[in-house]
């Protein structure tokens, strides 16, 4: 009897604990709702101001913390070290070795570029190049003579030429700098960049975070991490893989001296722990908190929330050129597009904290068409469309994605929505590397993925990467002659109105083709110390921390 | 004819060999005993004054008095009545043999004296046990710990498992000494070495571990531990059962020697009547948790009273008649969880009557020293077969 009671009691306790366990959204194993799958691809050029394309969301959200005035600064004590909690580890110091967003956070502080952009206005500004002159065949740059690498060496023309040579070879950067033919040294402070093809967004490309200048000497001396030595306002004092990176102010920097002495970037892969860190005041900035935890950050007395409608577009791509006969049929794809209830997806996967996408590019991209409409949720229409095809009886298909809570939820809703019109969907979660291999081999049927262009960038890189035949990021495996020609034409078109028209046509074509189904634009959150100043949250996640500071 | 001749020859040779072995063993034992004696003399000079010579107080007559002891084991399956109204008295210097089959209650009785009966499930239901006049039932656990190893010591049946494998032999002896006397570690180690020599083990081997000793030597160590503090009462629970015959002889000699020197009383629990004959002054035959016959050695061996005792003697093989069949006692010991109302030996007894099954026979003194619990003796003329032979 005693034994029976004891067993019963124990069982009851175990069940009750197991039931209330597993609360944390992030679970374990490094999920994060922020940059869930891989990298945001970089974009280029065009300086169109971010228009009111966010639809009024930004009015409630704080996305910009202004700088203090002169007098305020004089009276304030600044924290010597600002601590940033990263959600993903900085895997390498080599700027040419990845396109990962977190590397951009580092590179903006440690490396210099030919030109740079103002973080708020995206206005082009001199960096290593003090002046430039653009023609159709070449661009002339005047290079400053007082730039120094962190090892004390001066930045020379040879270093610049070497850097671009390496970029042309390297897989992560080669497509971006493909518009450059070669660089000619005119003299010690002048270079001529000969263009292989004309590109309107050339200067924007040169401001891209990993199109940066490295030291030829260091790069050759240490193949692994020599390129981590840059000429930016901060130098890498310590880097421990999987743990942290320490940046210290570089006193010989040629430009404006930042106010914070050092930045400590800590790798905190577990979402809830990272959020607690910012609430405790252990960190000053919390990257990518999960949407559900944002309220906690706001309610703490040490921290606050910043938010902005992100550049990141989550989409479903359907492989229209693969072995799957049904998916090659445009009407089938359109039926699928109408069958999906995207509002449900936003509620279920993002807790309502996302913006319904209306076109195939994000609002911050130039030539974004605010009036374009994506396919509406209309299951009746979907059924009807499907019945007009050869596949009216339904068929099977697989949707693949990198395993994580958000994408899994989307996949499951996709499965349910399509089941309603007679299509059986198999949900196929994959780990990071298997997914990349699948996409590289173009063996997928449908995928959930994301695309996040760079600040102020123009549409060329986006359209070229996503929709150009043969591009590595073209997930629909689309190769349409008209599309290819139009992209090329738009790239070189100088007339604004004509250019806009071409890009609007492309957007409409894409929606109609229903191979690229936009789901939603993410809302990007960030947790910050209440006393943080002079920082704005960048919708493409490529934030610039260089000139921010925290008062005590 | 031939066969008999060969047999006779073999018999002769066997007897001669047996005699030689016995002589050799005795010689060896004698030598050991001599050496032991010497050391023992030294120890004796520093030993405690025997209780019977304490000045002033009148020493208790008996070193041990067990009165009407009832011990049960209350297990989940059954209530096992191990000891049922046992009485026993022991004087100083006296050795009593407690003889009985497996399951008779011998070990339980012994454990009860030291209150070592595992509790649960064992329970001492009633009765008193007085050691040197003090009722151990009333003592606190702390007081019991003082008695154990000090006034009353016990040695167990299986020497192979009786010693702690992770401590040296010397440490285990010294532990007893340090527990009960006031001496430093070095003094205790010294005395431990002395005890080893007393039992015939070289002093230097005190630093070795039990697994490095043979069975006989281990048992000697156990004896050394038991006698280290010069107890008044030594309880030996089948000390030689696990040893072979030659070693048996040695160990018994040592025990006898020490017992004589220190005037230790001893309860020798055994089922071997030969050992009883060699070492004991009196005999108690135990059956189903009671003493069914008690007397001096001569009383019980020569003037056997109880049918069970007779059965025990009869079941010994006859060295003079090799071809005779063994005569075991028929049947098995009764189930202690299911004892009958009358005499527990009734269904195995050759002399059973109806009266036996009705009630438990009571203690009946046949002489000053000899009593029996048997209904048959209601008839004063009743004699066993064996007694008739012996007269």
């Amino acid at each position: 009897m005693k034994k029976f009671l004891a067993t019963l009691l124990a069982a009851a306790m175990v069940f009750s604990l197991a039931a209330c366990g597993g609360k944390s959204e992030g679970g374990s194993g490094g999920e994060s709702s922020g940059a869930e799958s891989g990298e945001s691809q970089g974009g280029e050029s065009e300086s169109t101001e971010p228009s009111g394309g966010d639809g009024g969301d930004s009015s409630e959200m704080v996305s910009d913390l202004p700088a203090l005035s002169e007098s305020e600064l004089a009276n304030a004590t600044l924290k010597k070290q600002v601590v940033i909690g990263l959600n993903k580890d900085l895997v390498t110091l080599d700027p040419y070795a990845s396109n990962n967003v977190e590397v951009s956070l580092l590179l903006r502080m440690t490396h210099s570029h030919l030109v740079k952009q103002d973080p708020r206005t995206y206005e082009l500004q001199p960096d290593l190049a003090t002046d430039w002159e653009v023609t159709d065949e070449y661009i002339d740059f005047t290079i400053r003579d007082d730039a120094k690498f962190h090892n004390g060496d001066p930045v020379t023309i040879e270093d610049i030429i070497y850097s671009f040579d390496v970029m042309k070879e390297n897989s992560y950067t080669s497509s971006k700098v493909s518009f450059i033919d070669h660089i000619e040294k005119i003299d010690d402070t002048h270079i001529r960049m000969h263009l292989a093809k004309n590109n309107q967004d050339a200067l924007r490309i040169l401001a891209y975070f990993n199109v940066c200048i490295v030291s030829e000497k260091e790069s050759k001396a240490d193949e692994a991490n020599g390129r981590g030595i840059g000429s930016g306002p901060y130098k890498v004092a310590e880097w421990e893989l999987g743990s942290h990176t320490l940046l210290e102010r570089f006193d010989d920097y040629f430009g404006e001296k930042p106010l914070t002495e050092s930045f400590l970037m800590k790798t905190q892969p577990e979402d809830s722990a990272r959020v607690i860190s910012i609430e405790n005041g252990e960190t000053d900035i919390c990257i990518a908190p999960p949407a559900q935890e944002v309220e906690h950050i706001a309610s703490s007395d040490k921290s606050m929330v910043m938010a902005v409608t992100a550049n990141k577009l989550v989409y479903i791509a359907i492989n229209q050129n693969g072995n799957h006969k049904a998916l090659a049929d445009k009407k089938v794809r359109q039926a699928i597009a109408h069958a999906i209830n995207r509002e449900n997806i936003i509620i279920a996967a993002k807790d309502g904290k996302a913006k319904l996408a209306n076109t195939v590019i994000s609002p911050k991209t130039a030539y974004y068409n605010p009036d374009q409409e994506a396919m509406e949720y209309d299951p009746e229409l979907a059924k009807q469309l499907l019945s007009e095809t050869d596949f009216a009886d339904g068929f099977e298909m697989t949707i693949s994605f990198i395993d994580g809570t958000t994408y899994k939820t989307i996949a499951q809703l996709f499965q349910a929505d399509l089941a309603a019109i007679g299509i059986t969907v198999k949900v196929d979660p994959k780990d990071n590397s298997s997914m990349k291999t699948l996409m590289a081999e173009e063996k997928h049927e449908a995928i959930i993925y994301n695309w996040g262009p760079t600040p102020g960038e123009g549409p060329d890189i986006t359209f070229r990467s996503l929709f150009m035949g043969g591009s590595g990021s073209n997930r629909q495996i689309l190769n349409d002659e008209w599309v290819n020609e139009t992209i090329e034409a738009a790239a070189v078109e100088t007339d604004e109105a004509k250019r806009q028209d071409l890009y609007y046509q492309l957007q409409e074509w894409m929606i109609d083709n229903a191979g690229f189904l936009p789901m939603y634009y993410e809302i990007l959150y960030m947790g910050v110390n209440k006393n943080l100043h002079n920082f704005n949250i960048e919708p493409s996640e490529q934030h610039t921390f260089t000139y921010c500071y925290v008062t005590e | 004819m031939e066969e008999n001749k060969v047999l006779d020859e073999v018999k002769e040779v066997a007897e001669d060999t047996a005699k030689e072995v016995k002589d050799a063993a005795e010689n060896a034992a004698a030598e050991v005993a001599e050496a032991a004696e010497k050391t023992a003399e030294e120890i004796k000079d520093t030993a405690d004054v025997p209780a019977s010579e304490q000045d002033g107080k009148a020493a208790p007559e008996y070193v041990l008095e067990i009165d009407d002891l009832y011990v049960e084991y209350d297990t989940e399956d059954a209530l096992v009545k191990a000891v049922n109204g046992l009485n026993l008295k022991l004087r100083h210097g006296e050795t009593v043999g407690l003889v009985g089959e497996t399951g008779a209650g011998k070990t339980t009785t012994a454990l009860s004296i030291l209150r070592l009966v595992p509790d649960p499930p064992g329970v001492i239901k009633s009765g008193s046990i007085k050691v040197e006049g003090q009722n151990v039932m009333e003592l606190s656990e702390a007081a019991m710990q003082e008695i154990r190893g000090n006034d009353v010591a016990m040695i167990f049946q299986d020497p192979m498992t009786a010693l702690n494998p992770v401590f040296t032999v010397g440490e285990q002896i010294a532990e007893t000494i340090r527990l009960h006397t006031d001496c430093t570690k070095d003094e205790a180690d010294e005395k431990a070495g002395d005890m080893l020599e007393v039992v015939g083990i070289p002093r230097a081997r005190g630093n070795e571990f039990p697994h490095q000793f043979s069975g006989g030597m281990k048992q000697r160590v156990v004896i050394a531990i038991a006698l280290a503090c010069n107890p008044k009462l030594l309880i030996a629970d089948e000390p030689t059962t696990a040893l072979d015959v030659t070693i048996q002889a040695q160990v018994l000699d040592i025990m006898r020697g020490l017992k004589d020197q220190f005037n230790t009383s001893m309860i020798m629990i055994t089922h071997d009547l030969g050992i009883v004959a060699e070492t004991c002054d009196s005999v108690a035959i135990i059956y189903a948790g009671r003493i069914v016959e008690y007397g001096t050695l001569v009383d019980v061996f020569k003037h056997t009273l109880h049918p069970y005792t007779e059965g025990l003697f009869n079941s010994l093989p006859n060295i003079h008649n090799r071809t005779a069949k063994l005569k075991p006692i028929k049947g098995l010991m009764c189930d202690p969880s299911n004892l009958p109302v009358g005499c527990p030996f009734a269904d195995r007894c050759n002399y059973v009557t109806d009266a036996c099954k009705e009630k438990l026979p009571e203690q009946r003194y046949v002489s000053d020293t000899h009593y029996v619990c048997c209904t048959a003796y209601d008839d004063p003329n009743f004699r066993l077969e064996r007694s008739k032979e012996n007269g």
Partner: protein
Amino acid sequence: MWRFILKRLIMLIPVLFGVALIVYFIMDLTPGDPAVIIAGEDATPEQREAIREELGLNDPFIVRYGRYMFNLFRGDMGRSMLSKVDVFPTYFQKLPASLALAFGSIIVALLLSIPLGVLSATHQNTWVDTLCTIIGMLGMSMPNFWLGMMLIIAFSNKLGWFPSGGFDGLKSLILPSITEGVFLLALIMRNTRSSMLDVIRQDYIVTAKAKGVNRRGIIWHHAFRNALIPIITVAGMNFAYVLCGPVLTETVFSWPGVGRLVYDGITKTDTQLVTGCLILSCMFVSVINLVVDIIYAFVDPRIKAQYSK
């Protein structure tokens, strides 16, 4: 005894060979193309092929394995494919954190489990025993990342006594040690209990009681040392486990240990890194086993005698 230790140390070499072969073989079989990971999914097939050639990924297995083993004996475990850091020094950079966590959790576990286990055994079948059993069951069933999160919320967030993560001095070690230690505690406690129950039934315990040794002496001096062997075994095994990779705890506490290093390597198919780390971890486990065997000899003289034969 020294000969025994020497012999075991020499035996580590064939173990190294075997481990290296098995690990290398398994890693070879895992899906995912390292060239894709290194080059990125936007790379052209030519670029990927170039990388494959550069890393020698197109050579047959035996050639690659041979090359790896040759380098291994020169002390060169190669470089992480993604981070370009040297594998060997990176592992040892992470090792102190893992060692600290391993020691921390074993200490937490032993501090509580041994007294509870002994208590449980000496009060067998009473309410004390039942309570300890329940605690044990809780410890084993509780998901440890959940426990970690709860501890962080309670002690770091609400009370502010401890930091919420990272390896930054002794204070930061406490919560992760408790998280990892709780499971160990349950295991060791059960082991202690059964081991003690076994020992208490032995004859030499009765001998000790008959000597007049008091209860504490019986339990701790006589019984416990004999019960120690299975406890040491379990503690050693679990020490090795915590050393090599309690990934969940390391993730929750952002603990810069070996576990996360290997885990990150696996998710990114950084074969070179994972192979090197696994081999090193296996070697450490072998060394821990040897240390445990040596400890046995100090506890039980019979075992020591066996080693000297």
